[in-house]
């Protein structure tokens, strides 16, 4: 697949303060990209540049081959943007809100009625068609805002903290909605603070800190990039001392923990392993050769939080 979002050497400075420092990123068509990082990391600045709302100090971003600097109008037709401050008009009815923005995108009046119904059904607000926007809950307003971003059928959705401030049910609904949009073939670029959500839905992630992209790729690739150690758990029959001796002699093994130390049974040993799959397989083979009576040999899968903590240093620009 080809890259639909290409960001090269993107920098944004406000006087002497660098909000975004030489960002390079490529995102393939159809991907769901989670952009994570602490507040002030440069996520919103990146998104505002990608949406043509902010001019970079240096570098450029392209959406589907169109530069945000030289072809902003083409870019605006390709993207749907939902800011974190989602800005709905409380004085309108739900259908009027979508009708107004559809008119702004030159969608003929004859097509708008059917399109509004479809969009409201998609975001599960069909029953609120004639309600005033101000009567909607925060989660509903968020979904309405998302429906607005879809009015002109953009290829790329850029969503700034779409689940921010939502209650658990509304978050789940938003996540399901994003999945549905992904199935519709949209490329989704969204920022979030909620790592579990990002892990659940994203095909790729990028981690920002202090204006820099510290890691990106899929979670597995990132763990390799960051050399995050793999936690291996072994269960065996008999005394664990011979097993520990073998492990201690291994170069790739770090920090061996007895099961009792981590409130597990005494027949369990855990250790951090920094090698790849081949080296791990060789270690398993060696244990079997040395007659260690293994019951299980498994890897505890690290989550996105581990990757995030490994990638970031807690620096805020």
């Amino acid at each position, binding site marked *: 697949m080809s890259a639909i979002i290409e960001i090269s050497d993107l920098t944004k400075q406000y006087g002497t303060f660098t909000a975004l420092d030489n960002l390079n990123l490529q995102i393939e068509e159809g991907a769901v990209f989670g952009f994570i990082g602490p507040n002030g990391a440069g996520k919103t600045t990146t998104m505002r540049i990608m949406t043509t*709302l902010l001019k970079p100090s240096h570098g450029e971003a392209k959406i589907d081959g169109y530069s945000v600097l030289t072809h902003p109008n083409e870019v605006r037709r390709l993207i749907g943007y939902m800011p974190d*401050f989602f*800005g709905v008009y409380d004085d309108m009815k739900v259908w009027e809100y979508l009708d107004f923005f559809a008119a702004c995108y030159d969608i003929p009046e004859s097509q708008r009625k059917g399109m509004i119904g479809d969009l409201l059904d998609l975001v599960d607000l069909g029953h609120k068609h004639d309600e005033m926007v101000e009567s909607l809950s925060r989660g509903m307003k968020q979904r309405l805002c998302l429906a607005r971003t879809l009015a002109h059928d953009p290829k790329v959705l850029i969503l700034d903290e779409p689940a921010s401030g939502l209650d658990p049910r509304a978050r789940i609904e938003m996540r399901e909605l994003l999945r549905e949009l992904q199935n519709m073939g949209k490329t989704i670029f969204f920022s979030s603070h909620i790592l579990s959500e990002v892990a659940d839905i994203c095909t790729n992630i990028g981690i920002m800190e202090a204006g820099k992209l510290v890691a990106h790729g899929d979670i597995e690739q990132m763990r390799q990039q960051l050399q995050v150690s793999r936690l291996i758990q072994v269960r065996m029959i008999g005394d664990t001392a011979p097993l520990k001796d073998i492990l201690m002699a291994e170069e790739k093994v770090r920090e061996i923990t007895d099961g009792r130390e981590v409130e597990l049974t005494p027949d369990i040993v855990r250790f951090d392993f920094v090698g790849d799959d081949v080296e791990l397989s060789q270690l398993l083979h060696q244990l079997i050769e040395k007659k260690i009576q293994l019951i299980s040999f498994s890897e505890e899968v690290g989550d996105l939080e581990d990757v995030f903590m490994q990638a970031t240093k807690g620096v805020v620009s």
Partner: protein
Amino acid sequence: MWAFLRSVRTNPIYLREQGRWGEPNRYYATMMRYLPLVLLLILGLSVFCGYGQLTTLLGLGDAGGALFALICIPNIIIQMITWVGIIIAPALTAPSIVEELDRGSWDILRLTPMPTTHIIFAKLLGGLSRLRIWIILFITSIIYAAAVGLGSIFLLESTAGGGGLGWGLTTIVMTLIRPWVEIGFAGLAGLTLSLWTHSARAALIGSYALVLVYRIILAPVAWGVTAALLVENGFEAAAFGAGTLAINVLYLITGFFLTLALRRRAKALDAGESVYE
């Protein structure tokens, strides 16, 4: 810009300001609730402003007396309508962009295919078009301008010995456009000040102060100075038309600078300058 003006009646931003989708302007809605008080205030101001012209006309003797009914009555009506316009116009334009910025919807509007300057001018024109005064203003202005213009031609031809047609036509045109210029100026001031102050309330207060200073002090001064110069040089009968011309020029020059300031702000907003940065 010409293409924009030709299609403005179908522009969604223009139509939104007119109230096609919701009620975009709470200041306007509040003002409409207090309309009787506003009209009383306007009546007082109109009589105050018309009084000077009444005494001038009566000072011209029989000719002035004869023109009184044709000039003073339409003038009082025009004064009233103009006051309605210049009081309501800033309330229609001042909040239109600031509230979008406060609500966070400005960025969304900017992402539509419309250029920022078109959005701003659609808001200005859409807001002003909500003033339901244009037809009555046009009819009364024509009666008034024709009476004043024809009176000027008659007076100049009979007393100054010629040159009446040119000054008469100038008087007609200048008198005709003056209320429109003043109302447009008030609306423009409201919008421009709102973009610089980032506050609809501050912009309203600022634009009211500006239009009052122009209407009560600067416009009469411009009229008086121009008329005095003409009288001194023996062109008494041309004083009215030239005075009105001077007032319009004063408003148009200031309006030109306000438009430049507005365009500059529009460009800054287009470059991504935001109240949230």
